[in-house]
């Protein structure tokens, strides 16, 4: 399981990386916005995407939309971890096909719950 973590703040990438390691996911790569994340995704081998929303260059919502529109990546599980907490934004992310949405500040338990839930769903739908 290879996970790509996209956030413009390196401190947040480090926190998520450490939390994932605690949960047993040791294979992670990082990118600092949608623009740098896309080539990594397109190169293949990423099984799970965790992305922030508010980033310079390309935002997380645009990254999500681009991923969903890409034939090869369209089924990639995407978890958003963001401080954006307005109703319209969450609706927008849901409509764009996000698999999970976590608002910052969050806890280790929340991250674990959401990741577990995404995998449960993927297994259920085959």
């Amino acid at each position: 399981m290879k996970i790509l973590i996209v956030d413009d703040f390196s401190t947040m990438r480090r926190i998520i990386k450490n939390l994932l390691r605690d949960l047993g996911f040791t294979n992670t790569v990082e990118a600092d916005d949608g623009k740098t994340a896309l080539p990594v995704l397109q190169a293949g081998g990423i099984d799970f995407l965790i992305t922030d929303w508010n980033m310079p260059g390309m935002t997380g919502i645009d990254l999500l939309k681009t991923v969903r529109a890409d034939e090869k990546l369209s089924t990639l599980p995407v978890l958003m971890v963001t401080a954006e907490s307005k109703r319209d934004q969450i609706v927008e992310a849901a409509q764009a096909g996000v698999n999970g949405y976590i608002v910052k500040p969050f806890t280790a338990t929340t991250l674990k719950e959401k990741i577990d839930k995404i995998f449960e769903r993927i297994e259920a739908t085959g």
Partner: protein
Amino acid sequence: MTKEQNDKELLDNARRLVEELEAGNEDGISETLDNLARLRETELFQQLGKLTRELHDAMSSVELDQRFADLAEQEIPDAKERLHYVISMTEESANKTLEAVESSLPISENLQQTAAEIYDDWKRFKSREMTADEFRKMSAKLDVFLPRVTEDTRVLHQYLSDIMMAQGFQDLTGQIIRRVIDLVVDVEAGLVELIRLSGKRKKAGEDKRKSSIEAQGPAVPNTADTKNQVMNGQDEVDDLLSSLGF
């Protein structure tokens, strides 16, 4: 051309026109008439230019007034609120970190001390300096110590995780501070424009408000952020998502 110059030229041309008429010089008449017409036009254009400039200045100062009013009434107090929020977030993170450290230190000191004691016993045991009674005591100590190590290191791991999570403030406050920096840049631009009031015309009717899905960073209480419907915490987000069929 000043008004005096203009008037003098008009008068000169008028005198010459009379002379040319009296002399019956047709070429001269036509030339002086052209000169007079040109002078009249120049004056008209100058007046028109002046009027346009005055109108333009009046208009741009009205726009600027509105921008400054927005800054003073809404955006500066908003920015102050944001910066206060940054202070309270950093304070909270610092306190969480310090609490976790203060709770961890006695645990690690205790582990270290007991482990050192047992290690001394163990060295004596290996060099066969230990009586059977002392061995039983060391054995009893180990029985207590080993499960405690397991439990204490689990607690320490939790405290370390708390410290790590508390560092999330850097991202959140960073996003808020970036917005305040944007405002400072706006104020700077406004001041520069105020200085060159007569400068280029501003783009009219530019809507500065952001669409409700554009990224804005963390919602700060008591600011314009809360005008839109904001989810308070993960539970509300989860409720909303489940209402959307998630």
